[in-house]
């Protein structure tokens, strides 16, 4: 088991190195002169030279890449072209709103989606099951910002129950913080709920067809004991896997959600940086988000050992 953990950790380091290489290579592999594109149409040749030096495009590739990796290991993500501030600092300022949004969404989505999937499987073929499946297909098809505007229109403008936009830090009061997160988390969570509910249903149906479920029923356990204690326990691995993989949807969706709801998080920073063509920030955001994604999925991999004692490495 120890060997497995070490092997997984090493694999994670390799993946992170590839991510860093890809993000770095983009600067070299994209057609055209990135410095000229980043400088914008109104740039003078001085501006372009300044950006080229800042990105290190005037140095040989390996020298630049080595220096950059050394910087990364020290936690230095470079400096923003537009503000001249360290990227790590700029991202650090924006962590709280994004973390609030994504963690709330994650928590609520799992708490909604898993019971939905379990009930759909337990009542397979009934209208409950069809309803959950229809919701799941619809959830996949509605772009997050379209759903966000529908929610704002209904709950903020028509009913006036919730704020239209904005974010309140958690230290300004739990109630205000939560009120401002309800709509963004709902918009962001829908596709995630659709995904998890669908996989939960499928793997529950598999588990329910097994012999041990019939045994459990035969020895007189109540239906809910069989569902949760036997079927769900055995269906857990694919569910946890898809919760981990689905984080990619949450990250991509958070960028859009923060834009619609004017939440000053990392996503908003990304969109502002696209408009200003501030590539070092985008590079930093891609690295941070991908790093978080890889680590979460590492945790998911390691959790298999706890979830399923049969898995031995």
């Amino acid at each position: 088991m120890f060997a497995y953990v070490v092997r997984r950790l090493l694999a994670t380091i390799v993946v992170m190195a590839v991510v860093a290489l890809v993000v770095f290579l983009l600067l070299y592999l994209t057609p055209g002169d990135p410095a000229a594109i980043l400088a914008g149409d109104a740039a003078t040749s001085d501006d372009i030279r300044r950006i080229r030096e800042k990105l290190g495009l005037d140095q040989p590739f390996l020298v630049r890449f080595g220096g950059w990796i050394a910087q990364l290991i020290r936690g230095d993500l470079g400096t923003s072209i537009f503000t001249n501030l360290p990227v790590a600092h700029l991202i650090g300022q924006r962590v709280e709103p994004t973390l609030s949004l994504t963690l709330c969404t994650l928590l609520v989505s799992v708490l909604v989606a898993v019971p939905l999937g379990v009930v759909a499987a337990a009542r397979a073929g009934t209208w409950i099951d069809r309803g959950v499946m229809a919701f799941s297909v619809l959830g996949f098809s509605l772009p997050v910002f379209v759903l966000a505007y529908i929610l704002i229109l209904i709950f903020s403008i028509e009913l006036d129950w919730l704020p239209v936009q904005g974010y309140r830090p958690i230290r300004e009061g739990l109630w205000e913080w939560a009120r401002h997160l309800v709509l963004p988390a709902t918009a962001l969570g829908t596709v995630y709920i659709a995904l998890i509910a669908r996989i939960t249903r499928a793997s529950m149906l598999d588990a329910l067809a097994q012999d041990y479920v019939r045994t459990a029923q035969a020895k007189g356990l109540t239906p809910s004991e069989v569902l949760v204690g036997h079927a769900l326990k055995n269906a857990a691995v694919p569910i946890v896997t898809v919760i981990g993989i689905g984080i990619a949807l949450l990250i991509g969706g958070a960028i859009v959600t923060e834009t619609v709801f004017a939440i000053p998080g990392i996503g908003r920073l990304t969109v502002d940086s696209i408009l200003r063509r501030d590539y070092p920030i985008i590079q930093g955001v891609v690295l941070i988000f991908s790093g978080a994604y890889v680590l979460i999925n590492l945790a998911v991999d390691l959790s298999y050992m706890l979830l399923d004692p049969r898995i031995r490495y």
Partner: protein
Amino acid sequence: MAASPTWRGFRDAFRRHPTAIAGGVILLVMIAIALLAPWLGTVDPQAVAPIKRLKQPSEEFWFGSDMMGRDVYSRVLYGARVSLSIGIAVAILSTLLGLAIGLVTGYIRWLDAIVMRVMDGLMSIPPVLLAIALMALTRASMENVIAAITLAEVPRVTRLVRSLVLTLREEPYVVAAIAAGTRLPRILVRHILPNIVAPLLVQATYVCASAMITEAILSFIGAGTPPNIPSWGNIMAEARSLFQIAGYLIFFPGVCLSLTVLAINLLGDGMRDALDPRLARRM
């Protein structure tokens, strides 16, 4: 053709899955709208009319007019061309690339180890972010949007093809073909490829749907097709600052996009069920 068993299987499965038929019909209507856009009462989707900006939907502007006085109805109809061609182009390109890479890596072991590490790395970058990073470095154009989304989609297709190849190469008829001295290219084309086409086709529909949503997201946040090109995402991007007074800017393109993506997803689900009846009961 009509008598072949696979064709009949397809037809029967579709009869049992009315949602798939509905999806196919909606998609055909959308494609027809895209092709016939110039003859459906539209005007030039890029013609600006500053005095007629932000008109609510009316006789003159069926879907209203945008901030520059452009006719939203015409832009939505021409937008079907942009959004559908990006979705279809990404589906075709990433399927072909994923197929080529997956076939080769499924057979050449040393290459497999390297290519799969690269794919793992690419898959660890959330697709929207990877596309954003690429778009930030290139000039906004439809070709660049297609390239960026394709790059984000290829790893998933490659993984699918590779896993299919790894299973198929153990099949008795492939082992028999190798034993009979068949060369590798012939094995790939005659024995492996025909068994990959069906699941790959299903995957392609999902890629198409997801590419259309990604394009809309990219355009919405200003990293997609150039603003003057009427893609559905671009029309909605204008509503970012105007939503409260011009909700129709979101409504019409939003409905078209959701409906098209829904249609493609329903079609994909139907095809998947037709190909794998055992899975159909579960998913």
